[in-house]
């Protein structure tokens, strides 16, 4: 569109950020030899960067800063101060599950807190949805069967899957025929990559049939990657490393 090289055609994409990493690097490589592009970049960037000033300035709500730093606490693995306030084991469990869920979303490769917020917001939406088409179709994108782990008997089974619904995704684990948890006990789901184990979250089983569920929101664009899944029965829901016995497993057996 400008300059003498075919690559100059990517100028607009370069200025507006609509360019892939590889193309950007190639474009930057040609710049020292292309005065036309250098000049155009300067002109277009100045206009591009002025565009956001066509807006009313609005003060953010006062409590937003506190919310951002509470989210930072969760991100850093510290229970947010607001969460400590709640008394009772169930609240504490929810807080630590939130911490682990947040950690998992991060580990899964990205950070778009909005998805988590969307998820919670969806929880409070009218049910059943009206009209029904207001909720996108759910589709299972990937799944991995889970069997009783070695030495855990032959009781029960499970499935781990990624469920896509419109633009959002959840990582979901179901187990059936699991022993009921007692007191603070919790099942913990581990993603195994090589010798590394990352917690994807915890759940309890209070159901007579031994049904347990874990659901963690994922960023739509992020692939989740691991070699195997293990589920352990832990003394509580607060662990960062497996302590209890492995009761379910799926995928390739973890080494060691």
């Amino acid at each position, binding site marked *: 569109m400008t300059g003498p090289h075919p690559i100059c055609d990517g*100028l607009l*994409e370069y200025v507006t950020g609509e360019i892939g990493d590889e193309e950007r690097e190639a474009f930057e490589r040609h710049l020292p030899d292309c005065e036309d592009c250098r000049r155009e970049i300067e002109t277009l960037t100045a206009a591009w960067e*002025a565009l*956001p000033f*066509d807006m009313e300035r609005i003060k953010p709500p006062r409590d937003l800063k506190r919310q951002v730093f509470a989210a*930072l606490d969760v991100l850093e693995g510290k229970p947010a101060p607001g969460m400590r306030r709640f008394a009772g084991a169930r609240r504490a469990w929810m807080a630590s599950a939130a911490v682990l869920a947040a950690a998992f979303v991060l580990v899964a490769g990205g950070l778009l807190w909005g998805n988590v917020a969307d998820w919670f917001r969806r929880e409070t939406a009218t049910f059943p949805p009206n009209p029904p088409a207001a909720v996108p179709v759910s589709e299972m994108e990937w799944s991995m069967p889970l069997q009783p782990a070695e030495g855990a008997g032959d009781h029960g089974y499970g499935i781990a899957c990624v469920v896509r619904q419109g633009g959002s995704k959840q990582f979901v684990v179901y187990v059936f025929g699991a022993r009921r948890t007692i007191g603070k006990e919790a099942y913990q789901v581990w993603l195994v990559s090589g010798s590394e184990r990352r917690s994807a979250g915890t759940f309890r089983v209070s159901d007579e049939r031994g049904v347990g569920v874990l659901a963690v929101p994922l960023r739509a664009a992020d692939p989740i990657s691991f070699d195997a899944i293990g589920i352990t029965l832990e003394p509580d829901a607060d662990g960062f490393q497996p302590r209890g016995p492995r009761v379910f497993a799926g995928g390739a057996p973890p080494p060691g």
Partner: protein
Amino acid sequence: MRNLPDGDLMKLVRQRQRQALSELYDRYAELVYSYAWRALRDEGAAREIVQAVFLRLWTTESEYSPEKGRFSSWILAITRNLVIDRLRRLRKESARLVRPEPEMLERVPDRSESPEDRAIRGVFRRQIREAFRHLSAQQIQLLEHFYWQGYSLRELAELYGQPLGTVKSRLHQTLKVLRKHLPAEEGWR
């Protein structure tokens, strides 16, 4: 902290100094929030974007280098990416959730800012508005679609029924006209 330039604060953020992030928040939360509000017209969504932007500053691998431009441009580029991801996701999710009509654009809640701030920002805004007067209605619409609503060039080519090359050269031309009528002012924030 208060006297440190943005670039130095960002270096401290990379060393996990919360105070530095807090200072950057005080300097830029309003810009980010206003941007998100302008693009999304939803207080809850704008809050989430602000949160995501500042957490991204905390976790980002990419470096801010003052030589490459102003911090405000850098943080706005991050903001725009997050906003556009969200808009594209919403568009995919449901055709009912497209953005509000243009007449809503001026209906923004007026939260107070100091008269001085308002005056300075007012000048910038007037200047860009002034430059906009040299654009045609189609050019303004193109900027609205591309810059604020995050339609890709390809999507716009399809939407307008025009070849991609035409859309690109229209956008190019639009930005050039704007630049021509903007003062050579630095430090817009």
